[in-house]
């Protein structure tokens, strides 16, 4: 089953995020207080390397596993949704220290109270889906 490779990518991602301490609430607070370079180093190096690597892959016309040229779907246009949605996300991120990847990783480290955060994140997503047509985007 080729699909199992995604399980291994997830495991690798989980291990990297725990070992880098990027899943730690303390590290996130330290970042928002600008008191250490650690988180900026992780996110910054990941982004810069990603920009360079994708540019090289596109320039050299590398094809993906399905034989197609590498293509990144552009995000939808908009402003309010990105700024307002981003701000709400940031408030929750700094309060609970769990974004949508780390919440599962932290559950795996044995923090079972995280299930409450996951359940209420599902509720938040559900409520967004209900209100979607009434919100400014």
């Amino acid at each position, binding site marked *: 089953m080729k699909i199992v490779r995604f399980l291994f990518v997830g495991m690798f991602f989980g291990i990297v995020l725990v070992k880098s301490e990027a899943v730690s609430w303390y590290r996130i607070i330290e970042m928002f207080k600008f008191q250490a370079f650690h988180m900026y180093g992780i996110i910054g190096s990941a982004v810069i390397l990603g920009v360079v690597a994708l540019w090289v892959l596109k320039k050299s016309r590398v094809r993906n596993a399905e034989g197609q040229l590498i293509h990144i779907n552009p995000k939808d246009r908009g402003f309010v949704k990105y*700024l307002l949605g981003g701000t709400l996300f940031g408030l929750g991120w700094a309060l609970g220290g769990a974004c949508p990847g780390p919440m599962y990783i932290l559950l795996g480290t044995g923090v079972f109270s995280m299930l409450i955060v996951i359940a209420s994140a599902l509720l938040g997503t559900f409520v967004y889906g209900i209100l979607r047509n009434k919100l400014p985007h």
Partner: protein
Amino acid sequence: MEFLLKPWPWYVSGPLITLVMLLLVYWGKTFGMSSNLRTLCSIGGAGKYADFFRFDWKAQRWNLLVVLGAIIGGYISVTFFSDDSSIALSAQTIADLEELGFHKVGNTLLPPEIYSWDAVFSLKGISILVIAGFLVGFGTRYAGGCTSGHAISGLRNLQWPSLIAVIGFFIGGLVMTHFLLPIIFGA
């Protein structure tokens, strides 16, 4: 082997996250963890209530496997790749948090003042977890992505929407850290 047990420095971790993103790109997928919340809502039957949840979630099975892997990865790292060292936070962060009533800052990944069962079974404690989760779930879908989708995946292409979203992440995070946390925990 000893290197594996110690916390990994940023210049090791950052490039490894890029590797995860590139692997998914190579396999024709987009790295984004928050989509799974929408997928799970759909599987749970949310399509009965909103069009937003009526989509072919089976095409997202790969991403649910990433989630399952992430849970296992969390387990593996604390069980086999840990030397129980505390987090080397800046002295100022530790002092600031102690002033707000946090103890043993950095001994665990998450503060017991928020995540221990003692904390969870108080009105304040459960409210913090429920509100934090709700904001993350609602905000991430409203903004169309989270840290992985916008910061790591979106910025690599230097897209405006992702830059605006990341600015939003910071506005929210700064307001919470500097104005709201002192009110929530200082009182």
